[in-house]
């Protein structure tokens, strides 16, 4: 696609999102917000998996940390402004990442993956046990959602679902844009080089552990923002938000959407939202359908939805160069 076409597509999507509540009614904005939350969560995950070659089984820790930090701030700080609560969510996840990065930044492969599984199990248990802080199994809920306020200028009531929709979408889409931009910077080049060959990165004059620590922290920060919006949106955060199942959501979405593209995980989130909407109309067994789709993708389209698009494009336009060609050659995970 040319720049022009990309710009137009992006613009059209933004207009649709802006008009959405007016077209389909406020009830259905829930689907969109949830989808966007998971899109950001999955994209943040893919900064590690697809871009840096780091496979984690515990990314929900940071989603949960963001949610809990925001919920705690709104519960305990009298008159905590909306954006400060959001900032707390971001910083909560960043703080946890900074705590872990000295340990995990020197790891890769299965050690990295499994250590995250262990840490997230630990945190899950803590979230259940530290009832005084986390509310145990009930979680933290019912906290006030403050208005979006710029003193002397505006004050927008965020308990109104329409207003919250615009606020959440602005934060989530804005974060997605920042993450996208990050992948285009020189730093974005260094992380994909780490993914391809970390030893050589060292020999090109870059510090590998530091690079990993930075992308790790940023990735976790984005997951924290997703978690923070999630907590405000649900007006509830509980241990499930940092559990194992929650950690698998971005993995599955990224795989189904496609690891090789920035937009793959967003597609994954959209696909899962659609599947969930459709299947819940007929059956409770959403996971059955999701599992089947995952199997098909892994077996036949290891590059995910983006892979299918590339094949179709290749067929239509009659070329095999570019992303599609590389995909068919295979090997997109680890080294």
């Amino acid at each position, binding site marked *: 696609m040319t720049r022009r076409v990309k710009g137009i597509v992006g613009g059209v999507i933004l207009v649709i999102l802006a008009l959405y509540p007016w077209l389909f009614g406020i009830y259905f904005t829930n689907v969109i917000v949830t989808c966007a939350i998971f899109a950001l969560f999955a994209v943040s995950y893919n900064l590690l998996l697809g871009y840096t070659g780091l496979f984690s089984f515990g990314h929900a820790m940071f989603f949960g940390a963001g949610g809990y930090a925001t919920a705690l701030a709104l519960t305990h700080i009298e008159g905590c402004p909306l954006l400060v609560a959001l900032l707390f969510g971001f910083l909560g996840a960043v703080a946890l990442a900074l705590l872990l990065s000295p340990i995990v930044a020197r790891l890769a492969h299965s050690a990295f993956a499994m250590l995250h599984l262990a840490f997230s199990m630990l945190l899950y248990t803590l979230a259940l046990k530290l009832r005084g802080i986390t509310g145990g199994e009930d979680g933290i809920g019912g906290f006030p959602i403050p208005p979006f306020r710029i003193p002397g200028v505006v004050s927008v009531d965020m308990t109104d679902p329409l207003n919250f929709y615009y606020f959440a979408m602005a934060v989530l889409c804005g974060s997605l844009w920042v993450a996208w931009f990050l992948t285009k910077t020189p730093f974005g080049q260094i992380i994909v080089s780490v993914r391809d060959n970390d030893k050589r990165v060292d020999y*090109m004059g870059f510090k590998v552990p530091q690079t990993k620590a930075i992308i790790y922290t940023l990735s976790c920060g984005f997951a924290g923002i997703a978690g923070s919006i999630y907590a405000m949106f649900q007006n509830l955060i509980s241990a499930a938000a940092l559990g194992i199942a929650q950690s698998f959501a971005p993995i599955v979405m990224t795989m189904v959407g496609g690891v090789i593209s920035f937009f793959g995980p967003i597609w994954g989130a959209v696909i899962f939202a659609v599947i969930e909407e459709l299947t819940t109309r007929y059956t409770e067994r959403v996971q059955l359908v999701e599992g089947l789709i995952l199997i098909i993708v892994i077996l036949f389209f290891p590059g995910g939805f983006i892979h299918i698009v590339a094949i179709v494009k290749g067929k239509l336009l009659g070329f095999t160069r570019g992303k599609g060609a590389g995909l068919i050659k295979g090997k997109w995970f680890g080294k």
Partner: protein
Amino acid sequence: MNILETKGLYHDFNRLEVLFDVNLKVKEGERHAIIGPNGAGKTTLFNVITGTYAPSRGAVFFKGEVVTGAKPHRMVRLGMGRSFQITSTFNRLTAFQNIRMGVLSRRGIRFNFFRKVDKMEDITRETDEILKRINLYGERNMPASALSYGKHRSLEISMALATDPDVVMLDEPTAGMSKDETRYAVELIRKLTEGKTAVIIEHDMDVVFSLADHITVLHLGTILASGPPDKIRKNKAVKDAYLGEMEG
């Protein structure tokens, strides 16, 4: 002046002694070949000098500074480049992106989060100039893994030079190449190392004698002889240990 020097360098892998009292002296501006039979410890010597691991004993001096045990990225920043015996590129990145990593590194552009790298025109221009010089401009947008063997090796060598090092360490640059590819690579190396110091591990004696100003022979982990090519060619011990077996 010796731009690179090792003093009493030892290295062992779990007590298997691979380097034994190595005193290498590389003069500024020379092309210095290191030859020796398989398993002599040539790659290990490179690894110890370039920071893959620290030596068990001894010291490495670079530009008059003690750099023993310095990590690879530090050595690169001090002005050392290295290529590998076994090709080690960023395989999913394009030839252009591979070389650009070196250009970014030389310009000190590391943790830059605020500009698009594709928009940095001076970086793009410099990278394209290198690609043209190494005759890889036609493959600019091909992933490294899709390059032909010869081109892939050229890329490997050029990545070591893209950071514009003062000293470049090439570990068997012509490994696995056909006669034609080798001839081409030798000319490339000659061109790219002009005005630099180069340390080159090489098995092909034609390459060694056509490129090198100075030859060091490594045998069983220690230096057997070191001197100008015609002296090495005549050296009895070297002939017995190495050259004889190569020629005969």
